């Protein structure tokens, strides 16, 4: 069987940028796009902070352009997900369904996924009022009352976005303060429709069997429980790195892939990491793209040193 020089797992800004650099260097990388082709930006609308787009760019369009750019240089992008990888011998083995692919080197760019609360009723009412994507689902809450859970930039962005549709947006924050950036906080606090309530946790999603009707909440200072009526619950409590493929095979810290300082090298020689799967700090499209570039350059250098 043919052994590829490089397989890239993931198709967000990190995976595609790594593919562009590696393809231009002649490595003919194979890219497995994974279960969320295009990554987290596919869940967004307008991206205003990616350099080179003075009028903003739609997240899905940006990713589509990245993919085309990679394919122009003969990166092969496949819309399937990897089931299993074997790093115990060379070449590395990447299993996809009943197919096996072999590669001298790997770039892991599997990104991160939205976290859920894990409370009763949440799973049952997903798509029936429970959502992790205001840009997808806000449209259906015109004139309604909704709740946003979370304290970071994403929660503030979602709450502000929802003012376009919803009547009233209540933001529940577990602690006594928001963690989001100052400009986003200021924008949210100026909105009459947004009400921020601190020290409050959601315990249960209530519904009528068809859709969400309310929430059971608790004030974590007084312990007082109560029920409120709402039509929707938007969960934006952060992301978790997608490390299922590499658990037990590569070193992790705080759940994230570990890379050598100033490098994209992981704990196994020939395996490199890029993007949110290895970044607990910045988590931006542009930093993911930057680290994708680093991984491709590190990989290229490593491959040529081996020869």
């Amino acid at each position: 069987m043919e052994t590829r020089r490089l397989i890239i797992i993931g198709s967000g800004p990190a995976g595609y940028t790594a593919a562009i650099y590696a393809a231009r260097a002649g490595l003919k990388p194979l890219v497995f796009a994974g279960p969320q082709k295009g990554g987290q930006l596919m869940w967004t609308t307008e991206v205003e902070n990616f350099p080179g787009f003075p009028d903003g760019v739609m997240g899905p369009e940006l990713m589509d352009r990245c993919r085309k750019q990679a394919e122009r240089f003969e990166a092969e992008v496949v819309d399937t997900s990897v089931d299993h990888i074997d790093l115990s011998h060379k070449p590395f083995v990447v299993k996809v369904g009943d197919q096996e692919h072999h590669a001298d080197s790997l770039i892991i760019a599997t990104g991160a996924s939205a976290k859920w609360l894990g409370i009763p009723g949440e799973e049952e009412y997903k798509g029936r009022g429970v959502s992790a994507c205001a840009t997808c689902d806000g449209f259906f809450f015109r004139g309604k009352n909704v709740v946003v859970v979370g304290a970071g930039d994403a929660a503030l962005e979602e709450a502000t976005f929802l003012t376009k549709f919803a009547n009233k947006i209540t933001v529940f924050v577990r602690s006594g303060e928001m963690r989001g950036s100052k400009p986003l906080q200021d924008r949210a606090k100026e909105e009459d429709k947004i009400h921020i309530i601190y020290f409050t946790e959601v315990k249960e999603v209530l519904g009528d069997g068809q859709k969400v009707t309310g929430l059971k909440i608790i004030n974590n200072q007084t312990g007082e429980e109560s029920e409120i009526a709402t039509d929707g619950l938007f969960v934006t409590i952060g992301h978790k790195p997608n490390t299922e493929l590499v658990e037990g095979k590569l070193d992790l810290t705080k759940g994230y892939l570990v890379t050598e300082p100033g490098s994209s090298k992981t704990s196994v020689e020939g395996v490199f990491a890029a993007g949110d799967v290895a970044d607990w700090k910045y988590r931006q499209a542009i930093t993911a793209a930057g680290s994708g570039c680093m991984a491709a350059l590190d990989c290229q250098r490593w491959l040529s040193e081996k020869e």
Partner: protein
Amino acid sequence: MSVLHLTKESFDQSVLHAEKPVLVDFWAPWCGPCQMMSPVIDGLAEEMETAVFGKVNVDEEQVLAQEHNILSIPTFLIYKHGQVVDQFSGAMKKEDLQSRLEKHL
């Protein structure tokens, strides 16, 4: 077979009175996960002869979306003999969608 572009007018005839099971995809052009799923639906429609595939653009068919209690997109409804037998939301792998549909064939 190609994917049916469903409207309020065509829904009853194409979905409720269909002989084969029907998978209906509620979507909108501004929704990223819907864009991801669009080629998946097109591909399954090409490959599977035992089911019918339709799409409802919720921007154009707001009444239809409301009637079906759609609160999230993409949402998929599977109809069999005019009855909803399954409903689920969110982007998923082609194989997963296919096996979910095959349970009802």
